[in-house]
């Protein structure tokens, strides 16, 4: 091993898989070896079996669907409002000066701390779940988009002006396309955060969703089901992340050049 020397693609996959193997092996040793009581940690086989029961008999697919819907719903609403606002803040400094201090403050407000308030305001329905995700992702998105757009290379802006663009054209033809790949990467990252907020939102006052199943299982001390739920969240997160990456690469092939 030498610092910063890249690893071959094959080796990379082997190493990545190896950690999962080590992890599951340690789990097997701890549970089958009798080092940990069943009440605290279920073994992998039991976890898979109850997972199957959850999916086949207890309608867990419906819960997964609900959770995915909530994440996407809250995230899409946040993104739809954050995009124009972020671009406007990045492009026009007075707009940024107006919103930036509040947004910087608001983004440190923990989304989960709003849950009691949101239940009071919006009840325990879907609006409350969407609102938690919205609060968790919106302010960060706005701020990061504003920074990305504001960092547009000045020489590209100047070149565009000498080619005859006006201010509106500059935003549409230079600032937005130039910032698009980085904005897409930011969306991908914030979508990952949205997944952590949705589970918190579902732990309190929900009647469906993966988080709700986990709270129910806690009452029954069903660690097998809890672990299965957590793994499902991880897997969905991984898949959505890979899909997002793939889409970004297809949308912005030029941004991959020279990397």
């Amino acid at each position, binding site marked *: 091993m030498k610092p910063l020397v890249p690893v071959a693609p094959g080796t990379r996959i082997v190493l990545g898989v190896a950690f999962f193997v080590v992890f599951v092996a340690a789990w097997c040793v701890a549970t089958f070896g009798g080092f940990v009581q069943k009440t605290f940690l279920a073994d992998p086989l039991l976890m898979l079996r109850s997972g199957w029961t959850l999916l086949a008999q207890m309608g867990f697919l419906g819960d997964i669907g609900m959770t995915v819907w909530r994440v996407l719903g809250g995230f899409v609403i946040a993104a739809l409002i954050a995009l124009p606002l972020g671009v406007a803040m990045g492009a026009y400094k007075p707009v940024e000066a107006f919103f930036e201090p509040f947004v910087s403050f608001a983004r440190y407000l923990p989304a989960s701390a709003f849950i009691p308030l949101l239940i009071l305001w919006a009840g325990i329905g879907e609006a409350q779940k969407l609102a938690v995700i919205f609060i968790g992702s919106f302010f960060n998105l706005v701020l990061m988009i504003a920074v990305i757009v504001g960092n547009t290379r000045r020489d590209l802006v100047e070149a565009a002006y000498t080619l005859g663009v006006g201010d509106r054209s500059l935003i549409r033809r230079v600032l937005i396309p130039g910032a698009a790949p980085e904005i897409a990467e930011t969306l991908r990252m914030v979508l990952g955060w949205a997944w952590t907020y949705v589970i918190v939102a579902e732990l309190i006052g929900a009647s469906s969703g993966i988080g709700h199943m986990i709270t129910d299982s806690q009452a029954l001390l069903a660690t097998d089901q809890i672990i299965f739920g957590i793994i499902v969240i991880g897997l969905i997160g991984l898949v959505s992340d890979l899909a997002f990456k793939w889409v970004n690469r297809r949308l912005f092939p*030029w941004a991959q050049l020279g990397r």
Partner: protein
Amino acid sequence: MSSILQVRGVERRFDSTLALQATDLDVEENDFITILGPSGCGKSTLLRIVAGLDRPTAGEVALDGRRIDGPGADRGMVFQSYTLFPWLTVRDNVCFGLRERGLARAQQLEIADGYLAKVGLGGFEHHFPKQLSGGMQQRTALARALANQPRMLLMDEPFGALDHQTRELMQELLLGIWEAERTTVLFVTHDIDEAVFMASRVVVMSARPGRIKLDRAVALAHPRHYAVKTTPEFTALKAELTEAVRAEVLAAQTARA
């Protein structure tokens, strides 16, 4: 001949530093003017003021008698840094200004492909800028500026980042295009060979605060072949300019010490 660009008493101050002091310059139609000077002498500042990217703190610049108060398509510019839009192909980069004017796509492509052929980039239309060498990127930037049919072409050390051999080829290419199209050019450089080889007029600027110190017509015949660089006329002018620039570089160093 009538002058198309008039620089009148242009001065630029950055806080307390006077970068450019009351400068006058007249540019005639079809002139190829190179501006020489030590670094920090304000030659790029002068060019940026003509481009409308910077504003003078005193004086004014007029193009065709109209006062310049901002950048516009009538003054195309090629920068020292690589300023192709990385998300557009070579062809769409060249079409950028044409599309802004609302030209039909077919017409855009015809003009763009014509200029790409002139700069020797036929066949690279669909490449992205990052797939090109530095010289090819600057040739595309030149095609992009020319495609807009500007009244003037402003060039800010456009070959400064290129290696010596590529730079000489680029000079010949630009000179060839100028000999064919006679677009008025204002070209900033610190390379004396380059300045003499392409110019119809060479202007030398003094150390900061910059002002025009020397203004020489270059009488070498066109079309110029690169071998002109070894002729006695070329060498004599180069020697005179070298002395003039050197005195300013020394002055700049003393001022800094």
